[in-house]
């Protein structure tokens, strides 16, 4: 062990977002302008289970917009699961692009652990 980094996820990759939606059996994200309770939002919209309004990802800015009225119009856990799945799929995509192998394990607290094994030829990529 030599280096530990904590990262707040920003959704900027449409391919990884699509894979995350597939993983959770949600519909494909669609680029559109949708109405929220206050105003409208443009970006990749995802319909979460039992959410009144879609969640909209502005992948250019890494921003997410939604209106769930502090949980009354949509369970925040669904959005968190989508962000978690996005992180998993984004890491898998990036590792694959580098030619590294990835192992995935579900942990008892609900976290997902990915172990990327660096091949000798890729150590300094």
């Amino acid at each position: 062990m030599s280096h530990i980094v904590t990262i707040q996820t920003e959704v900027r990759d449409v391919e990884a977002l699509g894979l995350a939606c597939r993983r959770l059996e949600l519909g494909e994200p669609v680029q559109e302008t949708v109405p929220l309770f206050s105003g409208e939002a443009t970006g990749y919209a995802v319909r979460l289970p039992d959410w009144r309004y879609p969640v909209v990802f502005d992948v250019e800015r890494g921003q997410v917009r939604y209106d769930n009225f502090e949980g009354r119009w949509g369970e925040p856990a669904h959005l968190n699961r989508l962000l978690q799945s996005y992180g998993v799929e984004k890491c898998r995509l990036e590792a694959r692009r580098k030619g590294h192998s990835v192992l995935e394990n579900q942990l008892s607290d609900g976290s997902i652990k990915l172990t990327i094994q660096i091949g000798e030829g890729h150590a300094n990529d």
Partner: protein
Amino acid sequence: MQTIEIIISTDGQSRIETRGFTGSRCRDASQFLESALGKVSSEQLTAEYHQCVQHPPNQLRQEN
């Protein structure tokens, strides 16, 4: 063996830990994931990092 371990919590926050790298090479190794995932909110350099980071470059090569 050189590995990068990522734990993605249920709220989407990621924790990346490098293993088996010497000195600052761990930073280079995980950089592609850090920039791909989002904003770094904290970083912790471990004892292993500090032990190796001050070695001259030729010594680093011999270690690997």
